[in-house]
């Protein structure tokens, strides 16, 4: 068998094994909760006979190992049992919520991934210039902010009380772009004559955003002044367009934090790559900088960048929790936090399992993709 296929299968197997062990941990954790489940559901006023009968019905009289397999078996088919608090089937709750969370995560990912890769690439190419240093400070700050901080700032600026918030934000961003553009011109010698295009574009975008601020005061409609909702009221009936608008702020919050990480890691990966001897060899063969990047660096950059993206997407799954709570977004994260507060343990179990499974799956994907893009394994001896 091709070595990639065999390694991938091995990874898959180990990943599933890990998931199994994790499910055992989750189940055991809930098992360790004090008190009696049946009693909790029926409440204090129930008679001992009713409780006993209910226990039998729930299957609580079976030994833990058997219950674990029952639970696992059900989970694999999508049946997580009933919620303690609402008595509804968890799978009902889960299906819409999971869909919502995935929608939010995808929204953030679509915004974040291209921006991170492009910025990371540029920062690596323009290493140690003004451009790079500014980005470094910005991203370092961004990864230091708790999600709720970013979320509330965005709400203040874009949702509540400051209808002009958006163009002001764009204006600020514009100033930053302008500074980058001008700073890069000053650094011209370091970059060489090859990429004056990029600083120019940045400066132009910056100027445009700043101009927009003035337009905003003169003719608000023209400048795109709008307020986003601070609470995401999404229900199955919401149209796609409305969904986008109501999820914009939570998605933006996630994007801002994830982009910073992804960008830093991409930058590091590319810098690492550019220090390789074969890159120097390509230069010594007289290849143009563009060709060196595109033909020599990028094919080898695929593996580390995919790795970076996959790792950060795995993060999105967890970052989603706080963001969903702040914006009251109806996703799995918010469900989990609610259930934890209400001590709705069956739901907590189910949410944990789903999060863990997604997390493990994404890391597994990263592993497998890293293998698949390794030239030594693609073309074995």
């Amino acid at each position, binding site marked *: 068998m091709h070595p990639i296929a065999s390694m991938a299968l091995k990874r898959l197997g180990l990943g599933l094994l890990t998931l199994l062990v994790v499910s055992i941990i989750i189940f055991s954790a809930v098992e360790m909760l004090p008190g009696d489940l049946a009693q909790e559901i029926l409440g204090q006023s129930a008679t001992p006979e009713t409780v006993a009968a209910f226990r039998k019905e729930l299957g609580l009289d079976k030994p833990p190992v058997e219950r674990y397999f029952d639970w696992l078996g059900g989970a694999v088919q999508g049946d997580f049992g009933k919620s303690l608090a609402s008595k509804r089937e968890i799978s009902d709750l889960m299906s819409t919520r999971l869909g919502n969370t995935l929608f939010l995560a995808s929204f953030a990912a679509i915004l974040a991934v291209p921006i991170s890769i492009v910025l990371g690439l540029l920062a690596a190419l323009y290493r140690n210039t003004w451009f790079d240093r500014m980005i470094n400070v910005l991203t370092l700050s961004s990864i230091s902010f708790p999600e709720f901080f970013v979320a509330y700032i965005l709400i203040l600026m874009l949702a509540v009380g400051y209808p002009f918030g958006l163009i002001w934000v764009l204006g600020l961003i514009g100033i930053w772009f302008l500074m980058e553009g001008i700073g890069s011109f000053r650094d011209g010698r370091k970059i060489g004559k090859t990429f004056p295009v990029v600083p120019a574009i940045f400066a132009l975008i910056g100027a445009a955003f700043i101009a927009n601020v003035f337009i905003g005061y003169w003719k608000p409609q023209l400048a795109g002044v709008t307020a986003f909702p601070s609470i995401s009221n999404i229900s199955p009936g919401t149209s796609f367009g409305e969904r986008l608008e109501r999820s914009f702020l939570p998605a933006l919050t996630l994007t801002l934090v994830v982009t910073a990480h992804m960008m830093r890691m991409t930058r590091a990966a590319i810098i690492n790559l550019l220090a390789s001897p074969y890159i120097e060899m390509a230069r010594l063969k007289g*290849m*143009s900088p563009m060709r060196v990047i595109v*033909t*020599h660096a990028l*094919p*080898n950059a695929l593996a580390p960048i995919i790795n970076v993206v996959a790792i950060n997407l795995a993060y999105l799954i967890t970052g989603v929790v706080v963001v969903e709570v702040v914006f009251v977004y109806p996703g799995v994260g918010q469900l989990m936090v609610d259930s934890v507060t209400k001590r709705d343990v069956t739901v907590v179990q189910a949410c944990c399992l789903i999060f863990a499974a997604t997390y493990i799956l994404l890391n597994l994907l990263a592993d497998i993709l890293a293998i698949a893009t390794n030239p030594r394994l693609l073309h074995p001896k």
Partner: protein
Amino acid sequence: MSDDILLKMRGVKIDGKTGDDWLPIIKGIDLDLRRGEVLGLIGESGAGKSTMGLAAMGYVRGGCRISGGSIEFDGMELTKAGEAKRRALRGKRIAYVAQSAAASFNPAHRLIDQYSEAPVQHSVMDKNAAQEDATDLYRRLQLPNPDEIGFRYPHQVSGGQLQRAMTAMAMSCRPDLIIFDEPTTALDVTTQIEVLAAIRNAVAQFGTAAIYITHDLAVVAQMADRIMVLRYGELVEEAPTRTMLSAPTQDYTKSLWAVRSFKATAKPKPAADAVPVVSLRNVDAAYGPVPVLHGVSFDIHKGRTVAVVGESGSGKSTAARVITGLLPPSSGEVLFNGQVLPPNFKRRSKDQLRQAQMIYQMADTALNPKQRIRDIIGRPVEFYLGLKGRARDERVRELLDLIEMEPDTFAHRYPGELSGGQKQRIGIARALAADPEFIICDEVTSALDQLVAEGILRLLDRLQGELDLAYMFITHDLATVRTIADEVVVMQHGKVVEQGPKVEMFTPPHHSYTDLLLSSVPEMDPDWLTNLLDERIREGKPLSTEDA
């Protein structure tokens, strides 16, 4: 070779950035190169040879800058020409062959695509013509399967072959000048032969000028018409090869040449019934499921040096690990003064551990950078001999004197403040501190420059005489063996191929592998390589272990 000067470098000054300061690496060197001429640049590490080679292309590595002088290639002043012009030259008229082919080939592209890149991008040939040219050149450089080897990826090809492929790639645009930067340093001595032959052929066939950078004197003697000796970024001496070999003028040059003439003091043979200090009896060893040693047996007697020779993968270092107990053998035993040692070092007594000491190849990793010299040497003194305080300090001073390093200057220093040779001496002192009977020297001079290595060898010889130490000297360098060995053990693929007193080893007849090994060591005769190749072809012997 015409009188036409291809490359003219005058007063070239290059600085390198360390920390916040610019320190000079090249301090004003003149260099002339004619068309078709091969110039050898030799010097010890840090002399600036690579930097000069790259400067010939108008290229400096990151953290370096050209701070003065002129570099004129075929009439064009490189320091004033723009980057675009310089780029047009590189790969097309000046090519570079790096030290490590494995690292210099892009792992994501086939060899042939990397070959044709330069000609196509510089508009010398179109892709098809370039691919045919590649096959032709691979054939000329005697690569196996020249028609299909180009379609492999770098990791699918062996080291020596890759080096030749890189040479081929350098020739793809038929450049006027090729810079060879230590192309055979990382290769085994038997593989080296092939690559040297290939390079010399190619250069001669195409009439290319070349700058051959190396620290190996014998190699440069084979390849170059003229030699320049560099030291600390300055030119020491320059002369045609034969002149420089026979009559060097500068003291430094003379000392480089004289290195190989040092011979250890002769010793009487041991008595026939003398119990050897260390003895291996039929040792088999394996790393997990992979067998590494097969039936290895040899003896080391008191006061004598046994050189264990072999190429990479021969098992010589593994034999050392078995002796020290780091790798318990799967069968066979190790005896010390006639007594069987416990196979695992953890089961040995402190005294048993004390008797056998080891000196390592890389001084950087052999000494703890966060410990002062007096602690590095003092710890074994305290641990084994139980000396503390004053007595310990006294002993440390004695040891430093023994290795010819001034105690007051060095005792309080850290390894980072010492040079490579000094660090190696500290390694020796650390071994001596245990008052052992037997020392394993694991490639202790391989990472050092010639002069420094000679100093270490002299020191070891003297100590052996004074302290009656037995040495197991592991090396791949036959010149060192010739210098210091009393007995020689030749290993290949984990087996002892031949062993005996040195004199016997260096006179024929030999085992065929020993023959190959011995004859592959470059000599200081400029005709050596030519003669060797002729002889091997005549007698139908393999050219290298890769083809053997």
